[in-house]
């Protein structure tokens, strides 16, 4: 089964980290990538730029409107995601808990839904 890990963190907490600590966190995340690649769980992962770089797009009545910023203004923001292969939810959660930034933020684990043509 495929699962996504949605990584949420408080960007202010990250911005306040000394450069060395931030780099240690990045290295930890990259090491984790390697580790779950070797164990065969990894499909893809991406870090996202800060929420303030986002644009939100809606189309109503055939007209597209674009607003600056993320869709939801929340204390914690989506900072990145993983797509992994795991046996079940328990295995996915155990895997998510080993992601080093899970010590600072939150990981939402959600199964992927396979869409099929009607």
């Amino acid at each position, binding site marked *: 089964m*495929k699962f*996504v890990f*949605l990584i*949420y963190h408080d960007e202010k907490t990250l911005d306040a980290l000394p450069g060395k600590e931030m*780099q240690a966190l*990045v*290295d930890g*995340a*990259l*090491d984790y990538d390697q580790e779950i690649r070797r164990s065969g769980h990894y499909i*893809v992962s*991406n*870090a*996202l*730029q800060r*929420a303030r*770089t*986002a*644009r*939100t*797009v*809606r*189309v*109503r009545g055939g007209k*597209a409107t*674009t607003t600056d910023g*993320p*869709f*939801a203004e*929340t204390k*914690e923001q*989506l900072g*990145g*995601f993983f*797509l992994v292969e795991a046996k079940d*939810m328990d295995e*996915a*959660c155990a895997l*998510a*808990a080993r992601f080093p930034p*899970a*010590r600072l933020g*939150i*990981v*939402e*684990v*959600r*199964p*992927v*839904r*396979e*869409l*099929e*043509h*009607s």
Partner: protein
Amino acid sequence: MKYVCLVYLVEKEMEAMSESEADACTDESLAYDDALRRTGQLIMAHALAPVEMATTVRVRKGKLSATDGPFAETTEQLGGFLLIEARDLNEAIQAASRIPLARRGSIEVRPIKELKPSARRVR
């Protein structure tokens, strides 16, 4: 450059659709994925299971806590994402505005950040 298009929807509205409406919606979404694939813009697209299937994981002081449900209770929920390749933000927004679900929900477009390892990891 890579961008992620985060598709936010009101799950209740999606669930209230008739079967034929829901099928048409899925077909349209898959057709747009194919169109983006043909132009070389699509890296991947995935729909997510409803938020009630989510588990939220935290690790504090070495201890794991897992709670049922999504991290944030919001009126609209993340329902899927597309990872695309675009020349710039404008091109990414253009692509996002043609996602069929942009007519029902909201699409957040955000650039991907390449993580750079420190010197110790560069070999």
